[in-house]
């Protein structure tokens, strides 16, 4: 028995010492049961993922695929039916580890009668952050998420986008090592989306680990180092964006300032070498880039006029 305990303790110690892993799940399973104890929904089935420290990891999947369930299991809000999960080297039922985690839920769920200042102060107090430091962090975060102008306004008067921003701010109040974001860009306009993405990249630059789940694929593609796709509670695929999207049979050439004649020559050359040209078209930007460009120009113009 003693030997068994020693092995268990040593294995636990060994796990704690594997420093580069922030999150690890082992056959993580969650089944929701009915009132009578019958299995109703298998929300998650034997999920095995490992997220390295300092990376941005995206959890992708359609609605009801088990993304939010995974996050809730990692945060200890719900309990696994089978399997285990470790966050920053500790089991998910360890409350103390939550002091190193920042969480933004899918919906912005806060006390609506509090203003932004009070909200951040409340969550800061739950982390036992001293008063002066709390105030400092509140000011810094409100500036960072662009809510300084509305800091004294009750949250019930906030737009959906503003609520998402305060959600991000409260997730960062404890300067966490691991940030878990559930649909961080949902409800945000393209500018807010871009700012949020920049903020997440900034967090990565600071060495933080970010786990985000979303069904907005372009967002995930823009910022994530690695992604996992889950559907119906099961892991379908995981890897880096490059690995997953690489198509070794097709090569893309981006060429600037090429005449029509030269282009035809290139095409002929490819055909001579047994290659097949699938399509030749002019390059186009994304709608997001266009939107941002227009809004940015408009703002700069109105700024100049007001000067």
């Amino acid at each position, binding site marked *: 028995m003693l030997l068994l305990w020693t092995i268990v303790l040593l294995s636990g110690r060994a796990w704690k010492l594997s420093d580069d892993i922030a999150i690890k799940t082992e056959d993580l399973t969650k089944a*929701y049961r009915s009132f009578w104890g019958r299995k109703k929904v298998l929300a998650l089935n034997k999920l095995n993922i490992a997220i390295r420290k300092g990376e941005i990891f995206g959890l992708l999947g359609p609605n009801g695929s088990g993304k939010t369930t995974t996050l*809730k299991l990692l*945060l*200890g*809000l*719900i*309990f696994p039916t089978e399997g285990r999960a470790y966050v920053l080297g500790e089991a998910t039922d360890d*409350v*103390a*580890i*939550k*002091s190193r*985690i920042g*969480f933004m*839920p899918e*919906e912005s*769920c*806060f*006390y609506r*009668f*509090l203003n932004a200042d009070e909200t951040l102060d*409340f*969550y800061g*107090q*739950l*982390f*036992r952050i001293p008063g002066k430091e709390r105030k400092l962090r509140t000011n810094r975060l409100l500036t960072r998420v662009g809510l300084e102008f509305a800091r004294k306004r009750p949250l019930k008067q906030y737009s959906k986008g503003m609520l998402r921003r305060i959600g991000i701010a*409260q997730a960062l109040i*404890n300067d966490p090592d691991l940030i878990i974001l559930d649909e961080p860009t949902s409800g945000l306009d393209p500018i807010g989306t871009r700012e949020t993405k920049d903020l997440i990249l900034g967090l990565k630059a600071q060495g933080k680990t970010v786990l985000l789940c979303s069904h907005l694929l372009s967002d995930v593609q823009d910022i994530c180092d690695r992604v996992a796709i889950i559907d119906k509670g099961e892991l379908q695929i995981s890897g880096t964006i490059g690995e997953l999207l690489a198509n070794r049979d097709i090569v893309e050439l981006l060429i600037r300032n090429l005449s029509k004649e030269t282009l035809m020559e290139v095409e002929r050359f490819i055909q001579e070498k047994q290659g097949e040209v699938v399509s030749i078209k002019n390059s186009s930007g994304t709608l997001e880039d266009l939107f941002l460009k227009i809004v940015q120009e408009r703002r700069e113009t109105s700024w100049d006029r007001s000067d």
Partner: protein
Amino acid sequence: MQQILVIAKQTFKEAVRNKILFILITLGVVTICCSVFMPVVGDGREKIKIVESMCFRSITFFGTLAAILLSASSIPTDIDNKVICTITAKPVQRTNIIFGKIIGFVYIIGVLLLIMGSVSYTLIRYTALKQGTQGSSRGLLAREQFDPVNLQITGDSAKKIGNVSWIEGGGKGASVWKFKGLSSKDKNDDLAIEANFLIEGKKRSTGRIPVKIKIINPYSARILTESMEVSRNKPLLLRLNGKSLDGSEELTIVVSPENSGDFLGIRADSLRIFWGEKGFGCNYLKGLTIISTQFLLMVVIAVLGSTFLSLPVNILFCLFVFFCGNITDFMRDLSTVINVIETSEHEHGISGVMQKSNVYLMYLNHIIKKPILLLSYILPDFRYFSVGKYFIDGINIPCKRIFMGFGYAVLYALVCLPISFLVFKRKEIA
């Protein structure tokens, strides 16, 4: 501890900003103030009685309503709004959330009691002043009450139905009440003996039976015998001069019906002695203390319900507990009630009742009475916190009563809280 206080402060803020507390306090104060305009038939003391009664009933009603509505809704609302997700995702023990919520409700109840209690006290003093009876023994009364330390029922005729002992007259039975520790600051004060007996007799229509009362002073061996008539629904009153005790702190009182065929129904609290007075202000504070203990118990029960019930179900559950907790006496005496129904069909008094058995009543006994009896022991007994009768009868609340109420609430809370912690700890916040 810091986290508990943060959650408590938040809970209080929520109640204040949601305006529920404000609405309940306003309604309570308006109801209290309306008591002054209640029409009263009788002397000044009657008017004060009405005001006192209304004040305490209003405080109890609105306080209980606040305790139930706020504490029953807080956790379910946080779960519905998903605010609880952001709190439990922080390094907060779930027990701290429960503790924080309860302390928050204690703040709220404290504010409610402070405001409604101050208004009530001012109003009662004002009414007494207006009636010109303030400070007099007929105005704001807080008489010192003495309960018997021992009650003995003697004689062959004694029969016990529920918690009532019936004795027959004509020398076939008697009740012997022993009092100890009788004392008063002013020995010249009148000592009042007050009795509330049930009666059954051959001449039922008269509604009165003659009884013999013997007052024995064990210290001086002096015996005083009085013959009086006990009426239905009217307390029997006997006044003695305090000096007649001759310095003794003990008294024995023997009560028996005079005629054979007359029955006297006796409960343990049927006979009491009043001697001396205490300050009204102190008594009022004692009353509020007991009421506040009841609110706290209600808060603990509502929080327990909120850990596993949805908001509407929890409110219904709390109202059910509160209602049943106030009629535990009735629930436990259901057997007596059933027998009394039979008595009305019988013309030959108590002995006849004992013999009659009815198949339907036997079913009723098994299907309804026993589960209700069990329930009456599981649910909190709010009789421990009932203070209205003390003020209506102008009786000083014994400190024992406060300790009993407090002790009962603490014990009950000690059972409820671990269940709340356990349930909430295992609760999935989906």
